[in-house]
């Protein structure tokens, strides 16, 4: 049975609900058709060539209810957080605007599926000029689900002009032992003029990499004039995870700085897919990603920079460094540049290597066993990403909230 057809029943029952505004049905229906026609990506799709989804395709999922949570450390009148269903009724214009703009940033089978099922999740809206001092936490999780379940939460985060926010998004996929789970959140972020978002994506330390859990996560972000996105992403486990980050620098002078790390073990498979599109002049992008693959695990970093036509003073840099520790571990690092303007500074670098024997020997001569030495050195290797964050407040937040940011983790 083709896996996509599993969703037909889900779509049909969803389409019977009548208490939602008409525009939602009008939004879901074409996405449902498009998803069923397109199907899940295969290895033949360039953007998915390193990640085989066949295990997901052959799993039987039932659509679960989202165990999502959104809260601020301290409540703030300048920020509203609504369940998405409520927002679809009461803040229709905002939701529609964000969805439309985000679909211009990126679209794939999973975002279509998310559109097809649109309803669960949150709308976060920061009012014009507000600098929100405390942190917003968004959590999606599948934990102890009684049966194989799949959830597709949608979050929409809108920062109006001149605002600031720190957002920590946590994804947890720990199904009951022996059960399969698919967690596939889509987060759409709109940064208006002069808005700054500090964005941290991480996973809880309690998450074990079970044999049959999958996380396919995607964030799409559109930046207006002089807007700024500082992003840090840290992933490990479950069995298969894919982290998509699609950023469109849509306004002149906008800037994105992304840092990321991964550390895979066992049979884990992790795929970072980062797309930065410079669609305006005077835009800046930075990507610095480091990964470690142990045992029989596999890590992937595909980073794409696209610079549009007729732009000026575009400055883009991308760097990825990776470490292979296991005899059968694998890392694929693929930079991809597409430059359509002349007035552009663009650099990229990619390295994959092993630990230096001299470093390991040095630690061993101080009585530290080989395994422990490798563990110390690989943690030190990824820690460099955090040390590279020069924006002090963001680095503090990363150290506080991200799993890989903590010493000794």
């Amino acid at each position, binding site marked *: 049975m083709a896996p996509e057809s599993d969703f037909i029943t889900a779509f049909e029952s969803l389409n019977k609900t009548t208490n939602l505004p008409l525009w939602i049905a009008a939004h879901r229906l074409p996405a449902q058709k498009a998803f069923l026609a397109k199907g899940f990506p295969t290895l033949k799709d360039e953007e998915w060539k390193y990640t085989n989804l066949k295990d997901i395709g052959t799993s039987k999922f039932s659509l679960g209810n989202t165990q999502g949570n959104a809260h601020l450390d301290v409540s703030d009148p300048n920020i509203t957080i609504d369940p998405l269903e409520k927002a679809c009724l009461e803040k229709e214009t905002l939701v529609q605007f964000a969805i439309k703009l985000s679909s211009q940033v990126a679209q794939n089978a999973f975002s279509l599926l998310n559109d097809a099922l649109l309803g669960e999740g949150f709308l976060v809206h920061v009012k014009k000029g507000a600098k929100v001092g405390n942190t917003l936490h968004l959590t999606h999780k599948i934990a102890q689900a009684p049966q194989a379940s799949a959830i597709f939460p949608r979050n929409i985060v809108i920062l109006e002009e001149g605002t600031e926010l720190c957002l920590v998004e946590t994804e947890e996929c720990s199904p009951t032992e022996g059960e399969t789970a698919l967690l596939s959140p889509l987060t759409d972020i709109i940064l208006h003029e002069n808005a700054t978002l500090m964005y941290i994506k991480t996973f809880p330390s309690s998450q074990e990499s079970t044999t049959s859990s999958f996380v396919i996560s995607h964030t799409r972000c559109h930046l207006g004039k002089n807007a700024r996105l500082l992003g840090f992403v840290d992933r490990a486990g479950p069995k298969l995870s894919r982290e998509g980050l699609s950023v469109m620098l849509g306004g002149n002078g906008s800037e994105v700085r992304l840092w990321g790390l991964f550390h895979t073990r066992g049979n884990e498979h992790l795929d970072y897919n980062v797309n930065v599109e410079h669609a305006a002049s005077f835009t800046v992008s930075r990507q610095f990603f480091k990964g470690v693959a142990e045992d029989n695990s596999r890590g992937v970093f595909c980073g794409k920079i696209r610079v549009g036509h007729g732009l000026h003073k575009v400055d883009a840099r991308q760097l990825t460094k990776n470490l292979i520790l296991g005899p059968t571990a694998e890392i694929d690092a693929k930079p991809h540049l597409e430059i359509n303007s002349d007035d552009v500074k663009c650099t990229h670098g990619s390295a994959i290597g092993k630990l230096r*024997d001299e470093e390991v*020997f040095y630690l061993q*001569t101080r009585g530290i066993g080989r395994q*422990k030495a490798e563990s110390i050195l690989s943690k030190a290797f990824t820690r460099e990403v955090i040390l590279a964050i020069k924006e002090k407040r963001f680095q503090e937040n990363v150290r506080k909230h991200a799993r890989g940011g903590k010493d000794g983790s």
Partner: protein
Amino acid sequence: MLEILDLHASVNETPILKGVDLTVKEGELHAIMGPNGSGKSTLSKIIAGHPSFRVTKGSVKYEVNFKMKDLLALSPDERAREGIFLAFQYPVEVPGVSNFEFLRAAFNAAAAHQGGEEMDVMEFNDFVHEKLRSIGIDEEFLSRQLNVEFSGGEKKRNEILQMAVLSPRLAILDETDSGLDVDSLREVAAGINKLRSPQNAMILITHYQRILNYIVPDKVHILSGGKIIRSGDYELAKEVEEKGYEHII
């Protein structure tokens, strides 16, 4: 404590050591001198267990719990936990690892092996500060990344700090004097002298006699062409200084 017999060793199939004999007892400090390429560093790396060097003949025995054991059968970290310490000629830079964290990991590895208590951060902090004071090293060393952006002299002093923390039974100091200015040399030598005791032994490997102005060895050996060609006392080092290696070889 250490007994080396007819040691032959190669690196990349090239023979470097061609029959070294050396016996070191507790409380002794031996200086091994020799021209470049004589095999001094190879000898130190073989004692520490560097994987690139292959012993082709002979034996290295080391006393563990009053019994002479085959040192070559132990991994580098096992040797270290049994009390062998190599101060590197070129200490390795390890970005991302703080000196403090490194020292504590090393100390606790040895403590756990010897059945002692591992120290938590607070306890170790007190312990390491006492060591810093005893050998006159600034505490800012601790928060820096291991050997990263250290000057040549600082790297060598950091090796002495590690030695002070680990209190080895047998320390091999591989050209610890190389690349040091007079002041640094004096500081490093003072640190080494502080750590000498009747319970431990040291092998000081050097090209030049000048560190021996500050550290007086019990025995001096001349290594040349992969063999110890002469052994003597402090007078032999003076002879090298006055007449050069050519005269002796």
